[in-house]
């Protein structure tokens, strides 16, 4: 088992060297930083699916939350907003929101007053409607005012690392609510519910222009480590400043990843991990042993989502731009699933291996497809069949096909993944 993993990781290392040789250092270094962030996200999904058997198809939503969090925390302060009436209007909207929440809570407890059955349902629906109207009546003018006068709320100007942490916290808070709502459902329903919720999160972040600037995008978001420009300012040449800055970011990301793996591995091999596997394999038996299955599953859902939030924040920090419309289910949910399936669910090293491998496959299948197309095009025009048109856009789509092919082949021939979970029976 160990030998197999070492061989696979050695193969991966060779692949990275080959890509570095073929595509150059700037390309490879950014892909490696992204691969590290994706490893963190894949670890989050590994906790949820590999340890807990929970079906989360809403990864995109958590990545967006992380991205928004780091934007909000680390982007410079917008004095136009803080100098205007915006904060005051937002405060009123917040009070309206709280009042609405209180109203709904009261309606849900209305059976204490003797309102029962159909009447209670009616009162609850009415309370939701009134709360929604009250909130809309405050937030709509506030949003319009902020968009007209200040553009958007802006950031807090704090250190990006704080933003990463906040990304984790925000994702955890949302995961708690989502888990409370959806974890009672069986797998297929859970998958569809989480997709639905992630689409709601995406629609909100994309359209709340006053908070996130929506499709106008926010950039540049600062780095936690010095940028290439900073090194250049101190007199380094272009190449070494790029190397130093990317290397610094990669090192930081690797430290975060390493700490996460260490913590998760400790939890996994302890009683907590054993309990989680017991719940995954047979939740009825686990419940009869006195384990609180629902609470434990909620716990694992929140833990996994924290890593997704931090990973999403890291990605946005690195690319320096937060563009809500760039988030797609294929790139940000299904891709992570392919990583886990190919790497091996339930094994942390499998998750990391799958994340790096699939990310590299994903990014190089486009240039590779272009080379193949150009070759085929020259070949077919040599035969007099004419050239292949739109090579650029066609090869860009090739990676979606490759991704689908990889996942179906993996499910068929290596359903446990390349580095499968190690089941110990001796303990």
């Amino acid at each position, binding site marked *: 088992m160990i030998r197999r993993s070492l061989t696979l990781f050695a193969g991966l290392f060779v692949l990275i060297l080959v890509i570095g040789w073929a595509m150059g250092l700037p390309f490879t270094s950014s892909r490696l930083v992204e691969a590290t962030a994706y490893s963190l996200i894949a670890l989050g999904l590994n906790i949820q699916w590999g340890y807990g058997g929970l079906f989360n198809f809403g990864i995109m939503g958590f990545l967006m939350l992380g991205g928004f969090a780091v934007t909000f925390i680390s982007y410079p302060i917008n004095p136009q907003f803080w100098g205007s009436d915006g904060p005051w209007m937002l405060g009123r909207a917040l009070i309206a929101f709280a009042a609405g929440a209180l109203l709904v809570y009261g309606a849900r407890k209305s059976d204490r007053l003797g309102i029962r059955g159909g009447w209670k349902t009616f009162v609850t629906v009415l309370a939701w409607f009134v709360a929604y109207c009250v909130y809309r009546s405050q937030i709509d003018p506030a949003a319009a005012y902020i968009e007209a006068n200040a553009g958007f709320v802006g950031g807090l100007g704090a250190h990006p690392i704080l933003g990463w942490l906040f990304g984790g916290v925000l994702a955890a808070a949302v995961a708690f609510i989502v888990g409370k709502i*959806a974890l009672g459902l069986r797998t297929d329903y859970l998958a*569809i519910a989480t997709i639905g919720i992630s689409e709601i999160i995406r*629609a909100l972040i994309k*359209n709340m222009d006053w908070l996130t600037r929506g499709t106008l995008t926010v950039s540049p978001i600062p780095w936690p480590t010095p940028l290439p420009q900073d090194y250049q300012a101190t007199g380094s040449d272009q190449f070494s400043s790029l190397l130093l800055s990317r290397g610094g970011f990669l090192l930081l990301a690797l430290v975060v990843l390493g700490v996460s793996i260490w913590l998760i591995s400790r939890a996994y091999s302890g009683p907590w991990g054993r309990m989680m596997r017991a719940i995954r394999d047979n939740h009825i038996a686990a419940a009869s042993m006195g384990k609180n299955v629902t609470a434990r599953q909620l716990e694992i859902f929140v833990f996994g989502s924290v890593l997704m939030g931090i990973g999403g924040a890291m990605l946005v920090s690195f690319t320096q731009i937060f563009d809500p419309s760039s988030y797609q289910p294929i790139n940000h949910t299904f891709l992570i699933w392919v990583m886990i399936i190919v790497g091996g669910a339930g094994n942390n090293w499998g998750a990391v291996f799958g994340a790096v491998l699939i990310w590299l496959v994903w990014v190089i299948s486009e240039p590779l497809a272009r080379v193949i197309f150009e070759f085929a095009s020259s070949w077919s025009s040599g035969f007099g069949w004419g050239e292949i048109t739109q090579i650029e856009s066609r090869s*860009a*789509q090739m990676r979606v096909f490759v991704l689908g*092919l990889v996942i*179906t082949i993996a*499910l068929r021939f290596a359903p446990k993944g390349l580095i499968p979970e190690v089941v110990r029976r001796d303990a």
Partner: protein
Amino acid sequence: MTEFVFFINQVVISGAVLGCIYALGAVGITLIFGILRFAHFAHSELMTSGAFFAFMLAALFASWGIVTPIPTGFVVLPIAMVMSAIFALGIDKGFYAPLRKRGAKPVILLIASIGVTLMVQGLIRLFFGAGSYSFFETETKDVFRIDTSFLGSTRPLVITEPQLLMIVVTIISVLVLHFFLTRSRLGKAMRAMADNADLAQVSGINTALVVRVTWIVAGALACMAGTMLALDVTLKPDLAFNIIIPIFAAAIVGGLGQAYGAIAGGLLIGFAESLAVFNWTMVLRPLNGVLPEWMQLPATLALVPTEYKLTVAFVILVVVLLVRPTGIFKGASS
């Protein structure tokens, strides 16, 4: 009456059109769930590829110089449906049947269906690029403007020819499906297997045949839904991928495994979406004359802003999953 006609144009017609497409897609999903017990995500790609089959056939017809009285898309629909059914059977044979034979859990089939989604979408984009196409490049899209001045309205009732045909075709296919499920031997076998697969097998029902028929019906209906959606808007590679979750919402609202529930759910989601973004001020404007100054209606009075239209389906989905996960019509829950 102008306001009433406006309401019909904005809510009833667009809701019915959307509802028909959702319903036809949801029926396929719900049948597959009933028989094979997994959520088939690649249904969106069956719809999109069906639309592309129809598009290629229509282009072929146009190049042969065949001119049809109704839009060519509807004329070639039966052929495209046959092609889609074969395509669906091929996908099952190639990707799902081997996994089923191994005894894989439904969850694994669900993930496999996502793999199929990605592959088919990749192939479509490979051949057709990422641009959009229209069925009406060589022929015109007829628009009927029914004069409603006898009702005292200043606006006409507007419906396009494809929309009208779409509603008619949906009603016919729902009736055919109904008679197939209740009167024919195979249809009864399908319902029996959806109820209890083991019992159906021991009572001598050919389950392999039922599975094949399910894919044929689902593929044909998906092709119909996809083609009609492409006729109403434009044909693009992510045509149905964007609406697969509302379609799932329709199937769940109706109760997974219930064919009639899926139709009701589809129409419900379709109407809910168009009602939610409807601007009520347009209908209630006459009240402005009665209401005092401080209570004048704002320019837009919609339940949700237009950009959240698709979100309505997700919210309904989440609420239904919370309040009544088995759907309006009690669905297969095991």
